[in-house]
């Protein structure tokens, strides 16, 4: 390990020039190198001391206190009004889900089959697709539903849809009024709501689960609640933003006609924000689907369950089929909501012959009714015919993976080792094997260097919190994975983002791939990576990189593409080379997007670091996963959850402060920061 440390952990430090002597002109990155240098020196004398490492099944008094608190809450469930309320709420959700399940997905005793069999459900879904979005979507829906049955996961697929549907319905009921509030309140009110949403959105998905299990038990109710909580912020934020962005001139003009505020909302603000609201609903559905998959951890019904159990057995083939169906469902939901909004836009503008459409829909309803009736009446038609397509695909995938590892195992191992020994381990040694006070001082010093006092204050609070919850060592390992992953994400984002911004063809080629990538629940990414690299920290990081890359690449591409073409033209007219054009004009001017991309990358990585707890990511993710499965580990898991949140907040605050500081002190005549860093 010691030899590896000779390579400084910051990639920018590969060719470190001696920092200029006069401190006044020392750029921030040079200061950061100084901090890291000092850190390395101190580390080499003190490594292994006071690292606060805690064994896998060890807990501290604090963790036990949390577990006791959980036990106390559970013991008081008959008397505690809060628990009674949440349990009541949860039982409503459960009964809604179960009722729907009996209708369309599981046998409704004494019937051997659901009330409506697969043919009926598929027919109705197809008809709905036809009604809201046209025949192309209807075909897509029909094929998707058919594939659910064909691959042997009919019930699980429909369960996942049911949980998503229930959660999204509640999210819209609760979220739209809040969105209207956000869209119409004054600036102070909006900033309060936005801050709350920020906190929710910085929280990695997993962290919700432990407290939700406490208050809602496990199963369908917990699944609906965590899905709801996760899916709510995008709707409120996007729809609220849409309502807020309605042209002030139009509002003024219609106000001058003497409308009431209700008329303003209903006839002006909501219709004009309709497109954005639909985008919000789409985002909410996609978020709900991805969370409903993860809810398998709390025993939620749906496709997440088989993926999870296969992953924990390292059965890639078994995870592949349900994972693929999740992707199918994601694409189906995404395409249908988008197409539905386009179709309704057309209808609203009178470009659709309504009479003809009604006739088509009525005609199409006839076979639907027949299918409904048939699948209710004949149990043979209610169940999808047995076949072993799913399991033979799983076997095939396993065979392919074995072959692939045989042939290319060397390459994947090489790549894995390169990142692990070249980047991951040295940094982890420094962060986690330093005495905790040295790491803490190092982190705080870096926070101060990058973000000044505004970053230091939240960093002090978060570092103190991380220390307080007694999982310092694990926290450092998770932080390290997150940082390494983010570096990789940013490398990808810069390369592909710039390429996309500079070439229309690359953009046309990549953007659909990235869009598709963004609709896939993060869970699914683990499957192929696990197949290639086996369970390890690296697997979790790579899955995180792939999960975070699309959003980061798009942010960079849009940022660089948004640079005024006049400025680029002006620079070209002075004879700048392409490289100069990129590094001196486009990237500096897109700096805001770069910072945002890095920030998003960090948060995505953090949430993947936890999901990856299952596939050998270890550290906090493992603590949390263990907290679900072992009741005596609940306290430790809860502490790990809180620690993750603290890491997330710290990273977020430091990144924002750094971005703000940069933009305040930014002097366009100065060299961009990464050039300064390289000397």
């Amino acid at each position, binding site marked *: 390990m010691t030899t590896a440390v000779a390579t400084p952990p910051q990639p920018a430090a590969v060719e470190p020039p001696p920092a200029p002597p006069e401190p006044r002109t020392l750029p921030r990155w040079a200061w950061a190198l100084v901090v890291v240098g000092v850190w390395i020196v101190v580390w080499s004398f003190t490594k292994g001391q006071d690292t606060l490492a805690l064994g896998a099944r060890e807990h501290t008094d604090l963790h036990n206190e949390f577990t006791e608190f959980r036990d106390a809450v559970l013991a008081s469930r008959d008397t505690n009004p809060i628990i009674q309320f949440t349990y009541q709420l949860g039982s409503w959700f459960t009964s809604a889900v179960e009722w729907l399940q009996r209708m369309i997905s599981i046998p409704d005793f004494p019937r051997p089959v659901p009330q409506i069999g697969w043919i009926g459900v598929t027919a109705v879904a197809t008809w709905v697709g036809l009604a809201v979005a046209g025949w192309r979507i209807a075909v897509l829906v029909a094929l998707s539903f058919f594939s659910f049955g064909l691959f042997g996961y009919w019930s699980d697929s429909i369960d996942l849809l049911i949980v998503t549907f229930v959660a999204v319905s509640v999210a819209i009921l609760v979220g739209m009024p809040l969105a209207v509030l956000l869209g119409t309140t004054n600036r102070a009110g909006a900033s309060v709501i936005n801050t709350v949403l920020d906190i929710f959105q910085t929280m990695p998905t997993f962290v919700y689960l432990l407290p939700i299990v406490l208050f809602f038990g496990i199963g369908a109710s917990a699944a609906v609640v965590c899905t709801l909580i996760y899916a709510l912020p995008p709707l409120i934020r996007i729809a609220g933003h849409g309502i807020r962005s309605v*042209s002030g*001139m*139009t*509002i*003024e*003009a*219609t*106000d*001058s*006609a*003497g*409308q*009431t505020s209700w*008329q303003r909302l209903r*006839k*002006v603000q909501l*219709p*004009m924000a*309709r497109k954005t609201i639909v985008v919000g609903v789409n985002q909410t559905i996609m978020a709900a689907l991805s969370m409903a998959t993860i809810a398998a951890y709390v025993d939620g019904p749906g496709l997440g369950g088989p993926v999870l159990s296969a992953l924990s057995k390292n059965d890639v083939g078994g995870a592949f089929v349900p994972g693929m169906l999740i992707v199918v469902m994601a694409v189906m939901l995404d395409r249908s909501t988008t197409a539905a909004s386009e179709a309704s836009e057309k209808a*609203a*503008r*009178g470009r659709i012959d309504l009479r003809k459409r009604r006739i088509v829909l009525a005609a199409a309803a006839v076979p639907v009714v027949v299918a409904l009736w048939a699948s209710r009446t004949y149990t043979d038609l209610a169940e999808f015919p047995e076949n072993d397509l799913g399991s033979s695909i799983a076997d095939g995938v396993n065979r392919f993976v074995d072959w692939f590892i045989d042939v290319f195992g060397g390459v994947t191992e090489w790549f894995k080792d390169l990142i692990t020994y070249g980047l991951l381990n040295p940094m982890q040694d420094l962060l986690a094997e330093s005495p905790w006070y040295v790491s803490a001082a190092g982190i705080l010093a870096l926070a101060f260097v990058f973000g000044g006092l505004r970053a230091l204050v939240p960093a002090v609070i978060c570092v103190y919190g991380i220390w307080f919850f007694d999982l310092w060592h694990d926290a450092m390992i998770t932080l390290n994975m997150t940082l390494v992953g983010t570096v990789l994400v940013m490398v990808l984002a810069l390369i592909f983002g710039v390429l996309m911004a500079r070439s229309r063809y690359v953009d046309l080629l990549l953007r659909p791939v990235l869009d598709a990538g963004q609709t896939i629940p993060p869970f699914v990414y683990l499957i192929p990576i696990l197949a290639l690299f086996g369970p390890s920290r690296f697997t979790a990081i790579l899955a995180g990189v792939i999960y975070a890359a699309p959003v980061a690449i798009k942010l960079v591409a849009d940022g660089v593409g948004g640079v005024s073409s006049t400025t680029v033209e002006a620079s070209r007219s002075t004879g700048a080379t392409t490289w100069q054009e990129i590094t001196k004009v486009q990237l500096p001017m897109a700096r805001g997007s770069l910072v945002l991309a890095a920030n998003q990358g960090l948060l995505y990585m953090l949430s993947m670091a936890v999901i990856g707890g299952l596939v050998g990511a270890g550290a906090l993710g493992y603590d949390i996963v263990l907290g679900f499965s072992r009741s005596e580990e609940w306290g430790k898991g809860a502490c790990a959850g809180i620690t993750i949140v603290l890491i997330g907040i710290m990273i977020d605050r430091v990144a924002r402060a750094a971005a703000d500081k940069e933009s305040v002190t930014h002097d366009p005549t100065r060299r961009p920061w990464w050039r300064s860093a390289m000397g």
Partner: protein
Amino acid sequence: MSTVTDRHATTSASTADAALSVRHLWKIFGKGADSIIGTPDAELSRAELKEKTGCVVGVKDVSFEVAPGEVFVVMGLSGSGKSTLVRCLTRLIEPTAGEIVIEGDDVTRASQSQLRELRRNHASMVFQHFGLLPHRQVIDNVAYGLEIRGVPKKERRAKAAEVVELVGLTGYEHSYPDQLSGGMQQRVGLARALAGDPSLLLFDEPFSALDPLIRRDMQNEVIRLHHELGKTMVFITHDLAEALKLGDRILIMRDGAIVQVGTPDEIIGAPADDYVRDFTSEVPRSHVLTLKWVMHEPNGDALEGPVLQADQIVKDAARIVLDHQGPCRVMEGDKLVGVVDDEDILRVVVAEEEVKP
């Protein structure tokens, strides 16, 4: 100058008949704006006040009256407070102090529901950037004011169709705003304002966003509508030519305060200060001034030749005067008020030639 103040005084006396009367209207933006009015701070210039209190004066102690059927133009450069002023009239912006009376109703003291009633039935506004609803067809945009009043669909569509025809948009009823040119969109804005049959129309730089040819058409359209419908209009513009073309009277604003109020020939003939003079220096004076401004005392001249009226525009009278050898008589009604000769006319016309490059 004296003429201007006289005229101002006479209109002030006839408050009862005024369609719109504004007295000592103030709008100050910023914290603690209420407490400034009445203190010596209120006398400070805009920049000084901003320096001292952080507040910005939008409208500063403005008073004027508009007679029924009059076209009253408020003119000023950007930042002069004219748009703030017109928004204060129906309290789209809450005035800080002062009184606004529209057809005898005190707007400043109106409750929210009274205010809505006023906006629905008495005063409509046309905006620079149209402010149309992009998700509604032209006909439903025009009917919007009626819709929020609760007029049934059939009735309001019928009424809207009439107005659409009036502004010359027949055939475009079912188009959406983004399918129309800027000029046509503003016709929709105009139609929307007219649909409620208000007695007072407010225009906030309605044609500034249009290109010059369309702007001229739209100005003529407003003149035509004014002739046909006889509505009282308050028209905001930064374009002096537009102001002179449309206005019965013009109010010139600078830094939130009134610089001068008067008829077009008064503004040109007797500018209140250097600011107005500078402003009006490039206007072809012969096109605006009436004979009253160029005639001289009939001291000993032979009182014969053609008779001209004092309010006749110089340009129109020039041919007659120049054709006639010697001075012509200028009458106000039956009363002789002065004479005008070739030199009087040429002084105006030739001076113009010198101004022009």
